[in-house]
């Protein structure tokens, strides 16, 4: 049962299409796992539909309609056959960005057994997969912007509570936290930040430029 959900502002911005790509990815991944949030996100689309319906009309050029009628007579670009591949850990939108399944991830060690893989998105925000061995703590850190962490496998706990598969933690500037992975199982998360993290200790801070976090 998912206990930690998306906030209305994120779902509204996802529906409006104004989030950075990395945020869109984590929202789409959470929605793939969470029925209540999916229902809410669809409702923001309905709100968008009503805004469109009441939008001011803008005059079209004379040839606009005939050009479109020309476009619809052409055969559409052939649909790329989507292989309904599945992965027990990665929902479909995440598989797209990983380019495969869990075993295809190109992990890089970042110390203390923690590994990460940065996913290719637009530069306004960063999306990374984190691999945290069972029982391991991620260094205490604050944030300059927003950090979203979605659990895909295992679980972690911090001051905000316990987070398991499908749960999303939303950390803002005010949040200082030290997530610790459950003892039972290694934890895999998708983490998205719109500004570099701020680690408290000196060493992690020195390492920051190299880790790209």
């Amino acid at each position: 049962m998912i206990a930690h959900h998306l906030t209305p502002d994120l779902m509204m911005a996802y529906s409006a299409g104004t989030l950075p790509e990395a945020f869109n990815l984590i929202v789409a991944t959470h929605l793939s796992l969470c029925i209540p949030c999916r229902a809410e996100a669809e409702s923001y689309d309905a709100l968008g539909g009503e805004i469109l319906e009441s939008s001011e009309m803008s005059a079209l050029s004379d040839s606009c309609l005939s050009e479109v009628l020309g476009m619809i007579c052409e055969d559409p670009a052939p649909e790329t056959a989507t292989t309904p591949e599945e992965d027990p850990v990665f929902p479909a939108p995440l598989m797209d960005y990983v380019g495969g399944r869990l075993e295809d991830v190109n992990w890089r060690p970042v110390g203390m057994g923690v590994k990460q893989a940065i996913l290719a998105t637009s530069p306004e925000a960063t999306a990374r997969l984190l691999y945290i061995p069972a029982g391991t703590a991620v260094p205490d850190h604050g944030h300059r912007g927003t950090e979203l962490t979605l659990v895909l496998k295992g679980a972690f706990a911090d001051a905000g509570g316990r987070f398991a598969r499908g749960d999303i933690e939303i950390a803002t500037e005010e949040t200082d936290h030290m997530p610790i992975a459950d003892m039972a199982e290694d934890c895999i998360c998708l983490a998205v930040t719109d500004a570099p993290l701020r680690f408290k200790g000196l060493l992690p801070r020195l390492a920051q430029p190299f880790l790209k976090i």
Partner: protein
Amino acid sequence: MIRIRDQKDQAAFVELFRHFAPRVKGFLMRSGLEASLAEECAQEAMATVWHKAYLFDPSRASVATWVFTIARNKKIDALRKQKRPEPEDLAWGPEEEPDQADMLVLQEETQTLGAALAALPAKQRELIEKAYFGDLSHSEIADQTGLPLGTIKSRIRLALERLRHSMKQK
């Protein structure tokens, strides 16, 4: 829209085009696209409406909602040169005719939502529009405590019932 989907009815498409294309163009211009690009995107969006008509499900979304999502994706493509990650398709139960009752409830709910939006005080309405036109970041949306999200509460309940219902049929 159903005539477009089921009979590839061009006359119905022209009707839909006349209603939505100028609105899509206006919406895209408010979102920061310059006029000729906005028109080009609106054309692409309307062509997509035709080509993807077979995906339209009237028990899931109103025509306006559906056109909006297509126009929104064109906007992201044009403004940010990005694709938009979409949630995984749900494993729906065996293909069924869209439930007539569901369609009616959704229609009613869409009207309620439209009316609620129209009845909002100008300031609140403007806030919602700003969010959709990209004039507010998500953290600015969160800061706007006056945002009347209650407006869509019943729509959310409806969507949830439908999703739970479809999942059960698996």
